[in-house]
């Protein structure tokens, strides 16, 4: 009788695991297996939403890409790996954009991706916040995702035999059924901004929300401009990233991403980091030049980044994230695509070298003066909102209500 007791339990448990595992395999909430996809059932992979680091660490190896675009969510939401701007010789391309990535993480994710020997080109989108030395590593990063020792766990147990996966499968079915035209997370790592901001009604509110979170660390726990610093270690990580690419004979292209001028311009000014921002550009220019790697700057107060904030916008979803159209412009410029380069404004994307950097920085200052002059009231309002955020005020939920 006692023997039957535990044997029955073992059998029951085994059956449960087989059933749950099969269910998760079919629904595939993380988009890792992609054997079955049906609109209304599992086209919207809800499981990926908060687990992008985990999912991408697996996807990047299974997709076996020739080119990687590593960057923050700005690339994740705005650069299409299937873009016509990318020459055929670069494909397949994997969008390795990861929200709020840090330079140290760039290094770890790069090293991880190079376990696949197919990678020939790497494009890295650099952000000022990525180099914040006050937080060198995102606390959400689980180093186990890079460890071969945990391969079994990461590849099979987590996505198949876990309560998290079961819950995510159910969510996937629910959302896929409710929003049949929603498909956010692609196998090539792309998450189109239109899908991220599904049903966005008020661009201005989303802008304000994003500005607020970048200024007030209390809202986010992750440090942005309120609590910013640079030290030697972040630059040595940057050097290491370049060195890794060189060692592996990888064609590397770097660029500074274009957030809206209200954020990676005014936000940095108000948080008193503008001089540091310039210093950062000087330093990475020097390092890239020393190591003979091209570096482009798309940030500043150019015709793209100063688009008026209204509903709808052409270039931006919010102050931080640009649209696919801008992603294409960046690609056309840095990959020097002959057919499309004429569509890119001349001021958008400047190649940085120790010879050009000072005049470029000076030009940005001049552009800023012009921008302030022509948007006087708007910038004034923005500044007072920033100061509120910096003073630790809580954002009123009503301010962002009705965004979507």
């Amino acid at each position, binding site marked *: *009788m*006692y*023997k*039957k*007791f*535990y044997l*029955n*339990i073992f059998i*029951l*448990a085994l059956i*449960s*695991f087989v059933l*749950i595992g099969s269910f998760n395999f079919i629904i595939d909430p993380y988009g890792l297996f992609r054997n079955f996809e049906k609109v209304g059932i599992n086209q919207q992979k809800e499981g990926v*939403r*908060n*687990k*992008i*680091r*985990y999912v991408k660490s697996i996807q990047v190896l299974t997709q076996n890409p020739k080119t990687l675009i590593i960057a923050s*969510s700005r690339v994740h939401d705005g650069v299409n790996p299937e873009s016509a701007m990318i020459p055929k010789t670069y494909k397949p391309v994997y969008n390795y954009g990861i*929200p*709020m990535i840090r330079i140290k993480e760039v290094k770890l994710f790069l090293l991880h991706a190079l376990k696949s020997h197919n990678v020939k080109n790497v494009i890295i989108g650099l952000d000022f916040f990525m180099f914040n030395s006050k937080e060198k590593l995102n606390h*959400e*990063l*689980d180093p186990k995702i890079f460890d071969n020792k945990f391969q079994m*766990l990461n590849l099979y*147990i*987590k996505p198949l*035999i*876990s*309560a*998290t996966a*079961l819950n995510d499968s159910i969510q996937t079915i629910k959302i896929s059924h409710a929003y049949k035209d929603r498909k956010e997370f692609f196998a090539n790592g792309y998450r189109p901004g239109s899908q*991220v*901001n599904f049903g966005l009604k008020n661009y201005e509110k989303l802008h304000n929300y994003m500005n607020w979170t970048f200024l007030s660390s*209390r809202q*986010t*726990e*992750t440090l942005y401009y309120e609590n910013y610093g640079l030290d030697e270690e972040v630059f040595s990580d940057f050097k290491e990233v370049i060195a890794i690419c060189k060692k592996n004979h990888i064609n590397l292209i770097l660029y500074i991403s274009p957030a809206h001028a209200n954020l990676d311009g005014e936000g940095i000014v108000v948080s008193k980091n503008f001089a540091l921002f310039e210093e950062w550009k000087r330093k990475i220019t020097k390092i890239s030049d020393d190591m003979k790697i091209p570096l482009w700057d798309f940030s500043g107060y150019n015709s793209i980044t100063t688009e008026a904030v209204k509903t709808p916008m052409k270039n931006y979803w919010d102050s931080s994230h640009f649209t696919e159209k801008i992603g294409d412009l960046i690609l056309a410029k840095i990959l020097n695509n002959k057919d499309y380069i004429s569509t890119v404004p001349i001021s958008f994307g400047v190649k940085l070298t120790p010879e050009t950097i000072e005049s470029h920085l000076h030009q940005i200052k001049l552009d800023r003066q012009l921008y302030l002059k022509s948007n006087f009231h708007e910038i004034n309002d923005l500044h007072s909102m920033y100061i509120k955020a910096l003073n630790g005020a*809580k954002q009123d*939920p009503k301010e962002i209500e009705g965004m*979507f």
Partner: protein
Amino acid sequence: MLFNSYEFIFFFLPITFGIYFWLNKKRLTQASKAWMVFASLFFYSWWNIIYLPLILGSILFNFSVGSAISRIYSTPTTIKKGIPPKTILAVGIISNILLLGYFKYMDFFITNANTLAGTHWDLMHIVLPLGISFFTFTQIAYLVDAYRGEVKEMDYLNYTLFVTFFPHLLAGPILHHKEMMPQFDALRNKVINHKNLSAGVFLFSIGLFKKVVIADTFAQWANAGFETTQALNFFEAWATSLSYTFQLYFDFSGYTDMALAVALMFNIKLPINFNSPYKALNIQDFWRRWHITLSRFLRDYIYIPLGGNRTGEFRTYANLFTVFLIGGLWHGASWMFVIWGAMHGIAIVLHRAWQQMGKKMNTFLAWFITFNFINITWIFFRAKDWTQANNVISGMIGKHEITLPNFLAHKLLFLSNFGISFGGFLSNINGDILTLVIIILGLGGVLVFKNSMQLTKQFKPTLYFQLWTSLALVYGILSLTKISEFLYFNF
């Protein structure tokens, strides 16, 4: 290795179990013991093998010292010739304490010395060897038992098995030599006992569920709360402290359940360590229900040697206080643990004084005071410094902000005149109304339900037990791993 891991549940446990009983079946009892020692050392070294020599050295040293003491008792004529047993014992105990001191308290000592004397010694950043607090205490107890003449046998393999036996190796219970060795030698324990195995599977499933489902659920709120202590409003502060109180209990008692369960599968009965501690009606009662084997150790090997209650009223109070101070520091090298220990020491002293006056208290009031005292002192136990603890407590007494849930706003809006606001009332700890419900269920659970020990006593192989066990086991295993989540940018 942890009990709540795939490698333990699916590989280590079945293999160790199978080979142990197979060797016993072949009447290779010494080999089966050796196998168990080998398996236990493998279990210990799974993550990091570098401390294996340390534990082996510690075992060899303590066995030699213990044997030296015991030998003196078995051959009384040598007493006068050799070194007095008391000296040997003292050397043994001091060596153990020095070892623990070096690995656990060195940096703490250096930091304090630097602060006090203005020196600039570098910290040594010594990694704490797994289970060192437990195996050191277990072996000190063994030495004292040897000195008291309670150790009957001297066999190196048996002794090593007693110290390393994997169910208790990393987190207790803290064992006595005399309660373990007869069990390993009893012949009827050497064959598979289906009743014990069933009860073991049952208890293991409960323990696993308590640890990976219940404790980890509370942990998310407790961790979030302790990360943002300065921002906690009234409800958040209470939710944080209560979540931690429940997390700690379900985590530790769940882990102990698993230890007892696994030992039971091998027909070894380990002493119980928890007995519904949050039902306690006074602080002394609490310490008879919480981490019982530690309390027993502190009583037998510190309190009583200090003189216990036999040296006058004042000394008794001083002894009690000292025991709790040491008990506090044993939990970790930080002043916060000392403060926590001191608080419990004061409470025990006050309780004794109250008892001496012969006064009685209403049962509910007694429980209420005890529970809240424990809940508040756990804050000091968990907080990394005084400021953090102070922040949580300020929140709990309404010094920060009082925020009520949004849905109450239209009914209770007049309260906003009294400085009460409406909004995400648990947003800083990533909680919502469900958090509140689960905390209330947690409280109900620890107060109303029978604990796992009582349930195991009632255990019968019925369909009812079968279903619940399966459910707990399956859900527990499904919850063993979580994909680390990125909580921000949720749209």
